[in-house]
């Protein structure tokens, strides 16, 4: 059974979004996603300061099986990336919601936050 923390928001392509107090967001992939992927061997992160639009292919997670695109859950600017994943991509498997975070953004379209789904809806989606 996958872990789906209730304090996070989600999109259907298995990214999670944490709304931080300072108005920025932190993004990663869900426990369910890392289970599906298997051992992660490489993560290609976006450039800091790059501008991204909603649903852009922004990063790539490569597992022992295949490469998967990570989509931007919101439009905005990338303000930080988790450089630790370069040497330890397996952190995405061991700690998908904490140490395995991928990047932080400053959202530019606050209305897009309404498009994110809550934990219960995401849980329902992955159970189907």
């Amino acid at each position, binding site marked *: 059974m996958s872990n789906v923390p209730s304090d996070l928001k989600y999109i259907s392509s298995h990214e999670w979004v944490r709304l931080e107090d300072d108005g920025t967001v932190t993004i990663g992939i869900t426990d369910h996603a890392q289970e599906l992927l*298997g*051992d992660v*061997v*490489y993560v*290609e992160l976006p450039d800091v300061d790059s501008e991204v639009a909603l649903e852009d292919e922004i990063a*790539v997670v*490569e597992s*022992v*099986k*295949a*490469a998967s695109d990570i989509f931007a859950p919101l439009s905005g600017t990338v303000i930080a990336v988790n450089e630790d994943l370069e040497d330890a991509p*397996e952190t995405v498997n061991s700690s998908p919601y904490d140490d395995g975070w991928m990047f932080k953004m400053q959202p530019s379209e606050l209305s897009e936050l309404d498009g994110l789904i809550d934990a219960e809806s995401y849980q329902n989606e992955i159970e189907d």
Partner: protein
Amino acid sequence: MGQQTPFYNNHLESGAKIVDFGGWDMPLHYGSQMEEHHIVRQDAGMFDVSHMTVVDVKGEKAKSFLQYLLANDVDKLKQSGKALYSGMLNEEGGVIDDLIVYFIDSSFYRVVVNASTREKDLAWMSKQATSFEVSVEENTEYAMLAVQGPNAIEKAKSVFSAAQQKAVEDIGIFFAADCEGYFIARTGYTGEDGYEILVPAEQASDFWNKLVAAGVKPCGLGARDTLRLEAGMNLYGNEMDESVSPLEANMAWTITWVPEERDFIGKSALVAQKEAGVKTKLVGLLLEGKGVIRSHMKVIIDGIGEGETTSGTMSPTLKKSIGIARVPKSTGDSVMLEIRGKQIPAKVVKPSFVRMGKALV
């Protein structure tokens, strides 16, 4: 639900993630493919390979049949139990399958072919056998288990009977011993020492449990693929198929040209290819930039042309991405790989990356 091997319940008990593999329900991994890979390089792991096909060739003309059927020459096999790797070719010199043939006696050879090619192999072998006095029959009495790793021999021996321990005492690489219903071969597909064991199907589950108790860890098809790729071994369907000749697949060593009188299927096509000059070669690639090599990526060789990767992965041992590619013959020691729209440099190496636990590149 697909076909299940005699180890199916053992897989479930070991927590396997089961996937469909050519119609078979097989374990992809038992938690972590990466850990299973390291276990085989450092200790001992086991793989259910019962989906592979065992074909027994019997009859007075068994030898002459196989000398005609295979590009390698079974005449090299003089001692009972000795094994030989060969391609089975079509008339055009393309590889129908790669296989291992064991010599039991002059009227009995055992052939182990791939799972994915079972039907066409059996059909082809039966068709070619009509002009020889031989029987070609699939043997379904066995389950098949590969026990591989630096400690595989020792751990496997610990669960053998006294007679089996004695039977395998002196067997060298590419040799098999037949004892008490077990056919124990010192072969493998990982680049490590170990056995591939044919076990009577009804004893398979117990045998598995004994090996688990002896400290042999179950490993899935995922680790099997990264191990064979590090070892630089061809995978049928990736590195070669019916449109590729052994000369283009690093299998020239498996073609036996002498004695010249011996004819085998595909020989005239191979001779013609040799005379015309083979235009491609299969090489190993070591990625020098970031990313992961996968199959069917474009390889760009400056001033020479293009090639294509046939396999690729992140090497768990080297922690670098490795691959195998078919490139123009004159390709030198560096190429560019097109990975997700970017060109990333790669070094051309011999396609043998890790053997016996040691990095070779």
